[in-house]
């Protein structure tokens, strides 16, 4: 059974997700398209964190599973039904299967070799999706729905979408706008709960042991590889689910989702939030998606307004410097953030919050100020 603290955490999490449209309204993020992204990439990052945060295996190819999930979901829409449930179930399944295949090979090595192997596999999948697998992936155009799709299950249940391109719907509830967000939000809550249970389970403890000293685990006569592989598959399933949800909210799958930049992004989300923490990845994902949304919308005239308080000569300079970082240049901000976070805050935002908390506690009069810190 979860402890009282965990129940509180979970309740708080559920409350925040459910009230998200109101909570994020003041900062201009209270609309479903963006909230959906928070939820979907939150799931992706939680899954990545189960692998990286717990076992310490740094995978650079997780976007491949996201891509596989998306392709699976779109194919399910085409062949079976526009209902999102079969799509996400199959997406999760295929994400997991693909992860089992890649993990089985990659996990034979550790450390940097593992990172390079996963990176190589992801690049390989990306290249294949663009070239040979074009009949399945539709190459550069991306996989799309069409009116002529068979949709066997829909027809069997007598649902006919007529001559329009259907969007996915859960028994008549269209997956756009707020219903779409709440569907993703519900998935996020489920995923968060599962991650919580994994973190608190003996299995999670075993994964942490793999991170802290794998050799020692092996010397005690325990084979660590099945544990690492299970963690890899679970995180692959999370990624597959996230990919599936991306397709549910927008039934289009392209190979660029599998590129190494996408893999790097999920690493950054996890690191930014705080790897190895429960909430961190979700926060990291939300922060990055939020700033991506804000920054990439900026343009020169908006910057000019912002810096209008400066004298004329300084203004143009400030605008031209700042315009490097916004709009098209959003990736520059991302990269700089990456470097700064790794240098100054390796524990991520969660670590920052903890430090501020500790600082506040120490400042309390007569509080912890006199308490000596125990020797490490």
């Amino acid at each position, binding site marked *: 059974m979860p402890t009282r603290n965990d129940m509180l955490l979970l309740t708080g999490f559920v409350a925040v997700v459910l009230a998200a449209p109101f909570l994020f309204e003041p900062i201009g993020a209270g609309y479903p398209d963006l909230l959906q992204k928070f939820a979907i990439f939150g799931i992706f990052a939680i899954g990545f964190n189960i692998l990286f945060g717990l076992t310490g295996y740094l995978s650079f190819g997780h976007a491949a599973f996201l891509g596989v999930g998306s392709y699976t979901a779109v194919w399910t829409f085409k062949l079976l039904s526009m209902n999102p449930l079969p799509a996400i179930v199959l997406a999760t399944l295929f994400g997991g299967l693909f992860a089992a295949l890649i993990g089985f090979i990659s996990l034979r090595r550790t450390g940097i070799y593992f990172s*390079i192997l996963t990176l190589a596999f992801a690049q*390989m999948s990306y290249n294949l999706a663009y070239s040979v697998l074009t009949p399945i992936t539709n190459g550069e155009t991306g996989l799309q729905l069409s009116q002529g799709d068979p949709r066997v299950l829909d027809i069997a249940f007598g649902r006919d979408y007529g001559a329009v391109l259907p969007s996915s719907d859960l028994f008549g509830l269209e997956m756009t706008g707020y219903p779409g967000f709440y569907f993703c939000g519900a998935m996020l809550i489920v995923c968060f709960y599962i991650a919580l249970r994994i973190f608190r389970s003996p299995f999670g403890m075993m994964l942490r042991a793999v991170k802290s000293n794998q050799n020692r685990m092996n010397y005690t006569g325990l084979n660590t590889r099945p544990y690492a592989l299970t963690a890899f598959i679970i995180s692959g399933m999370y990624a597959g689910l996230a990919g599936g949800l991306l397709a549910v909210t927008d039934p289009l799958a392209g190979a660029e989702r599998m590129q190494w930049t996408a893999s790097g992004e999920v690493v950054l989300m996890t690191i930014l939030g705080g790897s190895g923490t429960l909430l961190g990845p979700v926060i990291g994902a939300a922060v990055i998606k939020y700033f991506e949304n804000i920054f990439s919308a900026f343009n020169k005239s908006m910057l000019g307004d912002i810096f209008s308080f400066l004298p004329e000569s300084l203004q143009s300079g400030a605008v031209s410097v700042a315009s490097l970082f916004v709009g098209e240049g959003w*990736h*520059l901000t991302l990269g700089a*953030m*990456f470097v700064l976070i790794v240098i100054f805050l390796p524990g991520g935002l969660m670590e920052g919050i903890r430090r501020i908390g500790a600082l506040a506690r120490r400042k309390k009069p007569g509080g912890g100020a006199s308490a000596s810190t125990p020797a490490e």
Partner: protein
Amino acid sequence: MDAIFLQILNGLDKGGAYALIALGLTIIFGTLGVVNFAHGALFMLGAFCAVSIKALFSMNKVALDPTQMTAWGTPMEIRTPYIIDWFGDFGATLLDYSVPVSILIAIPVMLLLGVIMERGLIRHFYKRPHADQILVTFGLAIVLQELVKSQFGANPIPQPAPEAAQGMIDFGLAIGFDAGNVVYPAWRLIYFLFSLAIIGIVFAFLQFTTFGMVVRAGMADRETVGLLGIDIDRRFTIVFGMAAVVAGLAGAMYTPILSPDYHMGMDFLVLSFVVVVVGGMGSLGGAVAAGFLLGILQSFASMNEVKNIFPGIDQIIIYLIAVVILLVRPRGLMGRKGVMEG
């Protein structure tokens, strides 16, 4: 037979680029113990050194010529690059040879960049886990790449080879095939020879100088070298600069073969990592051999005869080989015992 020979030739120039990048990666990894994900960005920066030099050389002086009229009735603008205006024929030659000339500029620029990178960022990461090193250099690579993109735009910028090297060499004639069977662009051959020369210089430097000896000793056992009272850190800064120069030169000279754009570095980096892994982490000879080997294999895989049997094999051959090698010979082709084990 001549087709096979042609494919081997085709693989050599690409293999040369892989080998040069992988050589730098291996040196950095062997000495500093740092996995440098920004090494591809250094390759790309080198390429953009060549682009900048070309742009600098072809800056135009605009003069109005009242004797000639355009179709709109305005005086014709005569554009002459300043460099030709100033130096005449010599200037024209410089402009023509902008790519080879640019390596003279690329050497100090890349050395400086490498030293700044090492002093400013990488050295603080020696003691941190490999994951942190990967992440910080990865972030740095994104930053460099985006800066180049904002400066030069997202489109590839073609760089011509010098006119004398633009032709083809009928290589087949020299070794007894019929004429016209093995024709090969001259610049690629130059690139191959250039990469061999650089590799030779690096090896000679490490083998025959005292500095190189210390570096090799540091690669074998860093701690003991430090205990002997040698300031290994200062030397390693220079080593990093050297690796940056090698990557930069590889990039600058590669521009006529592949028009540089801002993400060329990452494309090459992933492949070069694979090359390092196949060659064996920490083995310089392995990196070079694997670079050429994979370059040649890749060009074989892109033959139509092979593609008909295994469609798409040219896209994935390198990764496939890496996977097989890592599973069969985990240490790589020439990996040393005790380097990155476990």
